[in-house]
C-alpha cells in the first residue's frame, strides 16, 4: 500500500473538483484530485452539446471544451490528478483524515490529509426508484447511460424511443437520438410542467416536433426480451385516468427522472444530510458537520448550470484553504426556506462576510418577487421575470445586507418567494 500526504484531497475530478482544487493550489497548499474515470471532466465529457460556460467564459462551449479549459489549468499547477482511481473508504477517526483509493495503475493508495473536498457529483434515478411496473426486457436505460453509449462509445441503443421524464438529460437525448436517425415518439412527464430548462424544451423538442405529455404517468413497460412498448396514463387532479391509458410502441425507454447526489462516502464518515437536497448540510463556508470536510457541485445539490457549479466549488476550495490556515467562520446565521422555496444551499450565512446562496422554487410563475427577511423584516427584495423549479436562483447577501442579523441575539434569515 502506497502512503501519500497532501494538505487537501478533492474527491471527484468533474467541474466542481477541478475548480476547488485550483483554489487550494492557488493558496499554496498541496492538493490531489482523485477521479475514478480515466479522464478528468466528470459528466461534462459526455455532454457534447453546446451551452456551457456562458457565465464563466462568456461564450458557448460544449461540455468537453469546458472541461478541457479547466484541465489545462490543472495541468499547469502542482495539483496531482489520480485518474482511474476510486476512493473506496474514508477514515476520519484519527487526527489526519485517511482515504483509501483503488486503482489499476497506482495500486492501493492511502492518502492522508487534513481537509477533504467532496465533489462526487450525482447519479441518475432509475426505473426502480420511480417504481415503473411491467416486464424487465433489454432496452430500458437511463438517459445518461444512453448519452455515454452514443457520444463516447459510438453505439445506438435503440431506434424507436420513448423518454420518461423531462429532465435536461432526457431533453438533450431526445434531440441527440433524433440527430442520429432514431424516432423519438414522446417525452412523458408526470408533473404539469417540464422539469428541464426552457431553452432545452424549445431546442430539443419543439424543433423536432417531439410531443411532450405533461401530467402523464408511465404505468407499464411491456416486452419479453426487448422493450415493445410503454403504457401511459393521464393524470387529472392527481388521479390516474385508467380508462384513458394508451400504449406507444417502441424498442427503447430512456429514463430522465432526476439526479441524486452521490453521498455514500459522505454518509460513511458521518456527514449529516439535508433531506431536501439529498446533499450534505453545510455551513456558510460549505463545510459539513465533519470538521475539515467540504462539499460542492452536484454532490451538494443538483445544479443545472456548470457555471454555478464552478462558482460554488471555487468558494468551497477557498474556504477549505482558509480553514487549513486556521481561519473559522465568524457569525453563522441559519437560513430558512420560506414559502414557495424548496431548499436553500448552503443553509447558513456568515453575517460578517459576503455570501452566495442557491435556491430552488416550488412554483412556476411570471413576475415573482424574492424576499430575504431577517427576523421577519424584509432586508432585500428582488424581482424575477420568470421562475420555475428547474431553474436555480442565486442570491448574494453581503455583510451590509445582514447587519440586522449581526446585531440580533438569535437571528433567522428566511428567503421566500411570492
Amino acid at each position, binding site marked *: 500500500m502506497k502512503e501519500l500526504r497532501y494538505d487537501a484531497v478533492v474527491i471527484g475530478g468533474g467541474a466542481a473538483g477541478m475548480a476547488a482544487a485550483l483554489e487550494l493550489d492557488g493558496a499554496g497548499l498541496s492538493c490531489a484530485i482523485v477521479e475514478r474515470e480515466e479522464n478528468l471532466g466528470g459528466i461534462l465529457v459526455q455532454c457534447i452539446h453546446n451551452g456551457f460556460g456562458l457565465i464563466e467564459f462568456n461564450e458557448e462551449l460544449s461540455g468537453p471544451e469546458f472541461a478541457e479549459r479547466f484541465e489545462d489549468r490543472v495541468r499547469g499547477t502542482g495539483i496531482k490528478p489520480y485518474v482511474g482511481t476510486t476512493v473506496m473508504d474514508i477514515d476520519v477517526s484519527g487526527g489526519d483524515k485517511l482515504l483509501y483509493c483503488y486503482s489499476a495503475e497506482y495500486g492501493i493508495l492511502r492518502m492522508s490529509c487534513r481537509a477533504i473536498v467532496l465533489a462526487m457529483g450525482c447519479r441518475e434515478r432509475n426505473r426502480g426508484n420511480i417504481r415503473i411496473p411491467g416486464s424487465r426486457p433489454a432496452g430500458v436505460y437511463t438517459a445518461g447511460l444512453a448519452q455515454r453509449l452514443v457520444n463516447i462509445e459510438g453505439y445506438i441503443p435503440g431506434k424507436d424511443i420513448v423518454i420518461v421524464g423531462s429532465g435536461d438529460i432526457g431533453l438533450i437525448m431526445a434531440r441527440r437520438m433524433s440527430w442520429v436517425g432514431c424516432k423519438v415518439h414522446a417525452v412523458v412527464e408526470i408533473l404539469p410542467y417540464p422539469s428541464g430548462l426552457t431553452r432545452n424544451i424549445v431546442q430539443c423538442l419543439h424543433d423536432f416536433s417531439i410531443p411532450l405529455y405533461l401530467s402523464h404517468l408511465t404505468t407499464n413497460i411491456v416486452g*419479453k426480451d426487448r422493450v415493445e412498448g410503454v403504457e401511459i396514463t393521464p393524470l387529472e387532479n392527481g388521479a390516474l385516468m385508467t380508462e384513458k391509458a394508451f400504449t406507444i410502441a417502441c424498442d427503447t425507454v430512456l429514463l430522465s427522472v432526476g439526479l441524486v447526489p452521490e453521498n455514500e462516502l459522505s454518509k460513511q464518515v458521518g456527514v449529516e444530510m439535508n433531506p431536501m437536497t439529498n446533499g450534505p448540510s453545510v455551513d456558510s463556508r460549505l463545510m459539513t458537520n465533519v470538521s475539515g470536510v467540504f462539499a460542492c457541485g452536484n454532490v451538494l445539490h443538483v445544479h443545472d448550470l456548470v457555471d454555478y457549479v464552478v462558482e460554488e466549488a471555487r468558494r468551497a476550495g477557498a474556504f477549505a484553504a482558509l480553514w487549513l490556515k486556521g481561519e473559522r467562520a465568524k457569525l453563522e446565521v441559519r437560513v430558512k426556506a420560506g414559502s414557495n422555496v424548496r431548499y436553500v444551499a448552503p443553509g447558513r450565512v456568515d453575517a460578517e462576510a459576503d455570501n452566495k446562496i442557491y435556491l430552488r422554487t416550488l412554483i412556476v410563475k411570471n413576475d415573482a418577487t424574492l424576499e430575504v427577511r431577517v427576523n421577519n423584516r424584509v432586508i432585500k427584495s428582488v424581482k424575477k421575470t420568470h421562475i420555475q423549479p428547474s431553474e436555480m436562483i442565486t442570491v448574494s447577501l453581503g455583510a451590509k445586507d445582514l447587519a440586522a442579523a449581526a446585531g440580533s441575539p438569535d437571528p433567522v434569515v428566511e428567503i421566500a418567494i411570492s
Partner: protein
Amino acid sequence: MGETSGKGSCDGYDVAIIGAGVSGANIARRLSAYELDVVLLDKEADVSFGTSKANSGIVHGGFHHNRKYLKSRLEIQGAMMFDRLALELDFPFRRCGIVVAALHDDEMLAIDQLYRQGVENGVIGIEMCSRERMLGLEPKLSPDTVGGLWAPGGGIVEPYRFAFSLVESAVKNGARVLTGFAVERAERSGERWTVGASDGRAVSASYVVNAAGLFADEVSRIFGAEEYRIRARKGEYYLLDRLTKARPDRVVFPVPTSVSKGMLVIPTVEGTVLLGPTAESIEDKTDLSTTRSELEKILGSARTMIPSISETDVITSFAGLRPTLGEDFYIDISAKAPGFIQVAGIQSPGLTASPAIGEYVKDLLKKAGLRLVEKGDYDPYVEKRPHMKDVDHFAADGLVKKDPAYGNMVCRCERVSEAEIVAAVRAGHTTLDGIKYFTRAQMGRCQGGFCTYKIIKIVMRETGLGWDEITKRGDASRILKDTL
C-alpha cells in the same frame, strides 16, 4: 453460458438432466461424484435463469409444512446440508434465523401451531417468544408485535450463486452443460433416449431427469410420460438499497395464510433488503412483469411488521414464478416412460430442499437401475474467488499486486472490480444478467447506470463477441441496435 465441458465432447451420456435450476444443478453435482457421464441441459443462455434466480433466497426453518409432505421432509434434510455446501462451494450463505411476528393476540394461536409442527418435524432450537423476546431478537419490529416464533436455524442464501457454484463443481468433476438447449423432441431406441433441441442439436442418454421447473409438464409430454399441468403463481418483490435504515437482522415472516407464507422482509445475504413476495395465479408461464396493484400491497404489508420501511429506498422490483402442482413436490420414477425421473412441482421450499432433492433423485436413479460407482478423484471444492467488496485494504493491496485489474472498480455501488467481471466471463457468463448474478455488478443502487457500458466493453474484449451479440439474457434481448 455457451458450452462448458469437463470431459471430451461425446453426445452419449448415462444421464441427461433437463433444467439447470437449483434442482437440476444439485442433481448434476451429486451425480458427478460417480463414474457417470452426465449432461445438464437448459433452454436459457445461462444456468439458473428460471425460478431459481428470482425467489426469496431463504433456507427455511422447517416449521411451515407438515411432515406428511415430501417437500417438508426434503426441506428439513436440505436445510441441514447448507453449511457443508457453503464451505465446499463458496456461495454466500448465513444462518441469520427467522422470526414470525404476531401482530394481534389471535395470531398467537397460529404461532402455537407452527411451533408444534416445527417440534414434530424435529427442528432444533425453535422457540415461542414473548413480545420482549421478539423485540430483543429483532429491534426493528413494530411495537405492535405481541409475540411470535424464533427459528434460529433459518438462513439466507444467494440462490443464483448457489446454482452457479453447483454447476461449476459438477463441471469440474466431469459433467457437461449445454445452454441454449431447449428440449423439444425425444425418441426412445433400444435402451436409450435421444433428446433433441429446437436448434437441431441432440444428445443421447440412458436416463433422463425432468427438472424443467415451470415447463416440466411440457417436457413430460415430450417423453410420453405422465400428463399433468404445472401452474404458475407469481410472486413480486421490491428490493431496497443496502443503506436503508429498515434492514432487519433476521428474516421476518408474518403469520402465514392457508395459501402462502405471506409477504416477508428479508435481509439478503449480500446486504440489501427484499420485500415480498405476493402470490397471484397467472396463465402465461413466461410473464415476469410486475404490477402496480401487487407492488402496492407489498409496502403496506411490510410496514405493518417493520414500520421504518420507506419507498425512497426502493432500487428495483422483480417477479418470480412458483411452479405449482397440487400441494406437494412430485419426484418419482415415471410409470409410463422408461428411465425417466420426474422432478416437478418444485415450489417453495424448493431452494431449501434442493440439496436433498439431489440425494433423493440419485437414489431413485439407482432404484431405476443406474449403477453408481464412486469416483476416486471427486473433488467437492470449487476455487474460491476473491471479491473486492469482502476484503480489507491490505488484502486488496495483495490482489492488485498480483493482478492490477482488481484495482479497477467497475461497479461502484457493489464494489466489483474488472478482475471479477473477467472471472465471470471466463467462467462462461457472457450475458449482462449472467454477469450480474455472478458478480453483483449492476445489482446495486444505480442498477447499471454507470457500469453497463464498461461491462459491455470487457465482454467484447474477453470473448471477441461483436456489439450486436451483447445481450441482457440471450436471444432477442440485444442491448445495442446500431453503431454511429
